[in-house]
């Protein structure tokens, strides 16, 4: 998939995944790299940036049997941003669809 398209869409995908509930890093990256052929490593910088921009917060959950897990949670600002981006994306999709068929 074209990198420019990917970049813009990745943030939206990550934020959207968190709408249904908090997720930990591995969970998120596995889900997304399943659908898109991207290196899961590249998602960590994106997650970090989202946290710096205060769209998400993180918290650690210790596990008895396994490693500790860093969970990501949408903030209010993050929710609003995801909504706005989703709208833009849908508008973009509609416009491109129309233009490629005519």
């Amino acid at each position, binding site marked *: 998939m074209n990198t420019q398209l990917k970049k813009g869409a990745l943030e939206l995908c990550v934020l959207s995944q968190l709408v249904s509930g908090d997720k930990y890093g591995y969970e998120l990256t596995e889900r997304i790299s399943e659908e898109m052929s991207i*290196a899961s490593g*590249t998602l960590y*910088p994106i997650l970090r940036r989202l946290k710096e921009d205060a769209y998400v917060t993180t918290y650690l959950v210790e596990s008895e049997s396994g490693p500790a*897990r860093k969970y990501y949670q949408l903030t209010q600002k993050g929710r609003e941003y995801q909504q706005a981006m989703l709208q833009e994306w849908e508008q973009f999709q509609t416009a491109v669809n129309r233009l490629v068929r005519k």
Partner: protein
Amino acid sequence: MTKSEYMNALREKLQHYNRALEMEILEDYEQHFAEGLAEGRREEDIIAELGNIDDMLKEFSEEDLKQELEIMESQANQSNNYEQLYRAVVIEGLLADVEITASADDRIRIDYDNCGSKAQKMRYQFYQYERDGVFYAGVKERKGPDRHEDSAPESIWDVLSVFNQFAGWSGGDIHLNVQIPAGLPAIEIDNTSGDLRIRGIQTQKLETQCISGDLRIEDVDCKKFFGKTQSGDVEVSGIAMQLDEDTEIEIQTTSGNLAARRISAAKVYLHTSSGDVSTDRLEAGLLKVQTASGEQELVNIACDRADLRSGSGDIDAENIRGRELNAAAGSGEVELQTDMEAVEVKTGSGDIELAASARTNNIHMIAGSGDINLDLSWIEGASIASRTGSGDMSIRGYEVSGRMFNSSYGNGACQVSLTTGSGDIVVK
């Protein structure tokens, strides 16, 4: 590739980024591996999925990079080990205080420690390189980043360079500790304002130079030593060279003082300009001491020939033993207690005081306007020719009424010739 190889590569590349970022990403990757391995996946598969490290780093921006200062701070303390045997080692300390000691094995070890201010850490750095079998290491000024001539914004370099002009050469916070193995043919240290201390090393030729730094050398085993400083003081002790070989010690300081204890070489040259020279337990084939306004205080000297010269400084030698002694002072006084075969002293306006020994067979002294005081009590017999322009003469208790007087006593073996212009002559 294994997990540990991948993580090491990641860790190394993250060095260039700020610490918070470094810690976070490493933590994310560790957790990712832990989850994957807990699922029973193989390390290689997890690595393949995580992907190329450089591509991941492209997601970060310029701002995420470690600030210049952080990198410089982490470089401000380095330890380096070198194995090869070189034909010479050259240390250029600049403003650093340099300390050189013997290495416990056959490696050169250098510790560079910059504990100075941020400005200091940014301004100076350690370097090392090898050329033609010679090993060079030292401290130099860091070059600022390249900038366009007409770029307006003030970068941190602009601010710091102004600050640094007033910061002066105070480099007391930069240290270079060098450990040198035995067997190196030549060692050279070039310092500007830093002090230099050398202890317990072995080499063939040791050469040191400072401008304002002090020089302190202890217990060095070498065949040739050259030490030079301008305003720094020099303190040398424990350099014992074989007198029957072509060995040499030459120490020079301009305004600093020079103190030499327990040194010996076939040739010993000690020069100062305004600084004083003091020695104790010195052994030489040829000893040459030269000062301008500095004083000479020489104690316990054994040499074949001694040549002592000063301008306005006094010369004071006590227990100096050998064959020939030649002393000359401009306006300084000369006071000698000698055990020499031949003594020759010349002064301009200074007085001369000489105590000769039983071995002395030739004494020749000329004082311009100074007095001459000669103690021959240890001498069995002497022939004395004394002349004064306008002064009084008292030869072995006898008050001479003329300007010239020749006398002899005992076997007349020791030839003595004393001349002053306007001074008095007293012979005991």
